[in-house]
Each structure stands twice: as structure tokens, then as C-alpha cells.
């Protein structure tokens, strides 16, 4: 089944922790669409993202298929999936400058061209001229924007968002959220957003899944 547009399908996925079923979903995410996953801690939101990115902890077992643009990538090692993750913490590498952090994520190629693209990208999020700054000297909002650029210039085929706004204060949060969502739509990426925040969910204007706590845990 191939479609002209990029699409991520999670087909009949069910995840268990030992014998306890944790979650079961079956979803298609089209290009530029954001699927929001909400639910209390322990409901398996992060486990779902880890399964999609291929980094699930082996204490969990999963059944189901992950299909990207018609290719089954369920068994592909994570570094070959082209699925990038934007985490809660910016996780900038302290041994590299701002430009270094972004260059790290880019495909290899013409040095001058890469430099050019980095400075344009920084310009586009209001960080023009900050190439040679060190991550520690940036504010929280600046770090978050660099982390976003790093993920976007990686040119992934899918973007996973693991509560990326939860550590930002409310004004900043709204700004960054707008930048991120605009970029996802512009680049036509299928995306999954995990969040606690109803406002995040509203802002996506897409489908929202609410995960419940697994049976065993909720009964006690």
C-alpha cells in the first residue's frame, strides 16, 4: 500500500509489561499532521514513543507493525529509521558550539553550504549570529530553539515530540509551540506529540488519544 504523501502507520500495536497489557493503538498519521497522546504518568506514553523510535526498554514486549511510506520499519535499528525525537530537555552537547550542535545533526556535504544553512536557520528563529556561542551561555528558550533546529535540519521523515514544552514558562511555551507546529506543517512531517497539557493538545488541531493506566495499576 503506497500513497503519494508521506505517512506513518502504527498497525495493531499492543505493548505489554510482562503479562500486563499497557496500551493498544492503531493509527495512521498523515504528512503535516500531529497525533497527540495524553495520559497520566505510567500510562505508557513514553514507551510508545520509544517503540516508534526503536529504543524501547526490553522489559516491555510489543506486537504490531510500524510502516513508514509503505516500508515496514518495525525491525529496523533506530539509527536507520530517520525518526528524530525532540526531548523535554534541550540536551545540547556541551562539547560543541551552537553551530556544531546543529551541524552534528545535518547530513554531510559541502562545508560552505552547511554553514550557510545553519546561519539561515538560526536567523529564522531569531538567533541570528549565535553560531559560535556555547550552549551553557544560552537562555532556556534559546536552548529549546537550537534543539528544535538540530532536529529539523536532520531532515527526518517523522518527528516525535516528548513533552518538549513542559519545562518552558507559559509565554515562551506558546512561542516555541507555534514555531514547532508551523515547521511540522511546512515540512509536511507526520508527528506524534506526548504531553500533559491540554493547551498543547488544542493547539495541534489534530486527533488526541487518551491513554488510561493499565488495569493492574489502576485497580490498587
Amino acid at each position, binding site marked *: 500500500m503506497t500513497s503519494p504523501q508521506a505517512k506513518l502507520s502504527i498497525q495493531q500495536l499492543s505493548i505489554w509489561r510482562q503479562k500486563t497489557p499497557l496500551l493498544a493503538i492503531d493509527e495512521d498519521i498523515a504528512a503535516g499532521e500531529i497525533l497527540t497522546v495524553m495520559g497520566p504518568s505510567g500510562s505508557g506514553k513514553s514507551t510508545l514513543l520509544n517503540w516508534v523510535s526503536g529504543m524501547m526498554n526490553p522489559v516491555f514486549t510489543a506486537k504490531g507493525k510500524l510502516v513508514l511510506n509503505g516500508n515496514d520499519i518495525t525491525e529496523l535499528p533506530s*539509527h536507520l529509521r530517520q525518526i528524530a525525537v525532540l526531548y523535554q530537555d534541550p540536551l545540547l552537547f556541551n562539547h560543541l558550539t551552537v553551530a556544531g550542535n546543529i551541524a*552534528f545533526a545535518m547530513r554531510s556535504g559541502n562545508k560552505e553550504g552547511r554553514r550557510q544553512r545553519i546561519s539561515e536557520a538560526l536567523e529564522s528563529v531569531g538567533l541570528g549570529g549565535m553560531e559560535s556561542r556555547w550552549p551553557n551561555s544560552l537562555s532556556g528558550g534559546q536552548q529549546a530553539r537550537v534543539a528544535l533546529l538540530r532536529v529539523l535540519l536532520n531532515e527526518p521523515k517523522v518527528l516525535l515530540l516528548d513533552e518538549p514544552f513542559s519545562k518552558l514558562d507559559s509565554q515562551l511555551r506558546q512561542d516555541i509551540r507555534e514555531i514547532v507546529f508551523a515547521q511540522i506543517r511546512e515540512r509536511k512531517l507526520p508527528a506524534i506529540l506526548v504531553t500533559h497539557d491540554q493547551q498543547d493538545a488544542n493547539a495541534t488541531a489534530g486527533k488526541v488519544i487518551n491513554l488510561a493506566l493499565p488495569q493492574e495499576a489502576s485497580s490498587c
Partner: protein
Amino acid sequence: MAPYTSFFTRWVNYSPTLLVVLILVPVGAGLLGVLLPAFGWLPALGESTFNTRGFTALWNTAGFMSMALLSYATSLISTLIVVIISCFILASYFNSKLLSYVQRVLGPILVIPHAAAAIAIGFLIAPSGFVMRLFSPWLTGVEQPPDILLPNDPFGLSIIIGLVLKELPFILLMTLAALQQKEINHTINAHFSLAKSLGYHPFTGFFKVVLPTLYPFMRLPIYAILAYSSASIEIPLILGPNAPPTLAVAIMQWFNDVDLNLRIKASAGAIAQLFVTLLVLFSWWLFEKLVMAFAKSSLVNGRRVYADRAWRILTHCITLLIIFAIIFSLMGLILWSFAGYWSFPHAFPDTLVSTHWQNVLSQIPETLSNTLIVGVVSTSLALVLTLFALEAEQQQQKPLSTATSLLIYLPLLIPSIAFLFGIVWMKEQIGGGSVFLYVIMGHLLFVLPYVFLSMATSFRKLDQRYAAVAASLGCSPWRIFWQVKLPQLSIPMLFTYALGLAISFSQYLPTLLLGGGRINTLTTEAVALSSGSSRRLTAVYVIMQLALPALGFLLAWLIPKIIFRQRQ
């Protein structure tokens, strides 16, 4: 109100000073005792003017430069190999169960005495050694041991093999310990996942993302092995060439020469050794800078994969090779200790006998009791001093000064050959004193740093609220220390004790020099035997050398199990 004092609290407060004095005085006196003769001042020979005769003699010694170069090169090359293999192993097995398995295998190897390891490796690689026998004649086609100089080859390759096998576990274990610290572990794992999600192959990802964060924690252990290996005695003595040997071995031979005039040259040599060690450290520092400058652009060039699969396969091979080297060394030792007649290409002795064991066991009681007395006394002293110093830290509610903490590790940082001879010289000036006392004091210098290192973390992690509860119930500081703190520390204390014993058992140079050849321990006997007479008897001694510390750790592991079973 005057602060509360008692006999106990007063002594506790003196203990950090006492600890520093016990280390600083011998090391300082030892350095002085090398410095004065180095500049020609040796009243025993009627020399009481300062001159540079010693350095001239040293410079004119045939092969002096090759000795220094051999020390310099074997130290740097072996450390480089150790660091590369460590990084490859970490990169290949990062976040896999294999790594914790590797960790468990390497732990016991760490406490094998250098002398024992050197002898076992010598047996393994000798022309008539176990490796040759396993592959002859079906693969090599030889019926007679080939005529090659191994070990003791002039290029120091055997030294490098010995140092690599002995220091690799140390660097790996220190790095794994750093990786297990919660903060570091969290950052590194997050960065590693991120790199993978950006498309980096795990092996390349490790080098580009994990290593830059991890290396600062590897640096100190690396400098420690550089300093150690540039001036070590046991491995070059047993595996190294004889003419010329490494500088440290040459110095030891000059000091032990019947011609006392050589002492002046030897002292000058000890100073030269300090410079060689400093040069080794400086070279590594320079090497670090070069690698950093060179790697800077490749970190961000965007390449995700550098023949990673090939490197991984190579790492599997190296790991297997190391594991087999260790297994074959042990097998070789056991076979030699029981071998009767063992003709060459055979991989198994023609006859098995127990006479070597009987011989050794009939001669050994005195050696064994010397080993145990020195070990038990020096470890007990070290443990008591360490506990008191750590207690002082808690009572005064301020950490030991940086100077004190650094001074404790002084004997590990300065090449021991540079100050031990000075202590011998000082001892001759003072005259008298029991030989045992000097040997115990010498062992204390090397046992104390390890005991302190091993005990400090657990002691500082103690929950202070227990002591506060006891104090509010009216317990004196002594009772809190004895009945509240120490019982909580029983398991780390037992482990530390076993470690202290293992360090003491393995000491060669302090025992030999400060004992003046009158106190033989398992290690000095094994080294003495290894230089010739009988491979079979040596094997028995080496096995005893391995068994004794292993027994200590076994007890440290068993005793709490037995006690806790009674409590349930």
C-alpha cells in the same frame, strides 16, 4: 561553652594530621635521601661535597638513552593501546548486558599482583610456552621451541603486552564506575539516544557524543597508569630486556650492587626517572590536545558511519583474544605446577606430579606468615587511620582540605623507585629499628591510599540522621562511632580490608628494599624464582599469590552472608 571533648574526639581530631605525617615524612625523607646522594653527598663513602659526578656517570653509562627511551616508549604505547581498546569495548558493548559481564570478569583481575601477571604472561608467550604448545606442531610445524627471544625481547614488546593486559581492566573499571554515577549516566544515555535518533550508528555515536563527555572522567586513571608504567619494576624486570633494561630496573640494579659507589649514579638515575615520568605525562597531555584539535571538525562533519561493522567485529576479536589470553595463562600456570616431564610440542604434561606443591608447602610457612603479618598489620593500621580521619571530617563538619586529600595519594603519583631508596638511605643514617617495622611502614604508604579511596565513598554516604538520633538519646561520640556508624559500614569495611590485604600482598619493591632481603613474602619469592631456576616451582608460588587475595575477597563476601542469615 567550650566544645565537648573526650579522649576519643581528641584522637579523632589528630588523625588527619597523623595520616599526612605518616605519608609525608617517609616520602619527603625518601626524596631527600635520593636528592642528596644524586648531587654527590654520601658521607658513608667519605663524600661530603656537592657535585654532579652522579649525573656525569649516568650520562656516560652505555645505553642510558635506550633505557630512558624504553621506559618512555613502553609506557606511552601500552597506555595508548589500553585507551584505544577500552574505547572500542565501551563503544561496542555500550548499554548492553555484555558490559556488566565484562565488568564482573575484570574485577578479580584487577587485584592480581603485577609480578604474578608478568610471570603468567611470560609463561604464555615464551617459545616453549603454552601458546606455542597449543599450536604446534599442527599449525606452526615446529618440533623444537623456536629460537626467539620472548619474553625479554629488546624492543620491549613483552613489556607492552604485560602492561596492556594488566592496566586494561583498571581503565575499563574506572570508566564503568564513572558511567554508573547517576548524573553522568543520565546525560550520556540521553545524548546517545539522541544521536541514534539523528541517524548515527551506535559505534560512531559513542565516539562523537559519549566519549567527549566521558573522557574527563577517564583522564585521572590514565595519568595514573602512565606514571605507574613509566617507572614500574615488576613487569619490565620479568618480561623486559636485560641489556639494557628499563631505566627503573637499571636503577634498582645499581642500588643493589655491592659497589657502593654506584649509589651516587643510582640516585642521579632516580632523579632522571622523575623527569622521564614527567615527560611521559607531558607527552600524553600534548597528544590529547592534538587529538582534540584534529577531531574538532570531524565531530560535526555529519558522517554517521565509519566502517562501524568492521570495527565492531575487530572489537569482538580483541575481546575474545584478551579473554583467551587470561584463560590460557591460568591454565598454563596450573599445568606447570603439576607437570612432571613435559616434552615440547605437547599441550599437556607427559606426567602429572604433586612434588612441586609438596616442596613449596614444606618451605612456605615462614614466607606465608611474613606475608600475612605485614599485610594484616599494615591494612589494620590503614583502616583505623582512615576511619578516624573520615570521622574527624564528620565531627568537624567540614571536608578534609584539598591538600590532605591530595597528599594521601602522593605515594601513587610519585614513582616509588624515586623515594624508596631514599628511605633505605635514611634508615641507614638512623640505624636500628626492626626490619618488620620498616616493611610495614613501607606497605602502609601504598595500602593507605587504596583503603582511603575505597572507604571514603561509603563513609561519606552514611545517613547522618542515625548519628543525630543516637546523639539525642544521649550517646557519646565514641558510642555513635562504634555502635551506630561502624555496624552500618561492616560490608564496605570487609571489602576494603580484603583490598588492603591484596595491595600489601602484591608489593615487591618496598618489601625487597626496606626488608633488606631479610623478609621474604610470596611476591618476592615468586619474582626471585622467576629469573631462572624452575618454571614449575614459580607456577606454584604464582598460584598461591593469586589464591591468597582471592581468599580474602571470598571471606569478605561470605562473612556478611553468614551473619545476616543468623539475623533472619
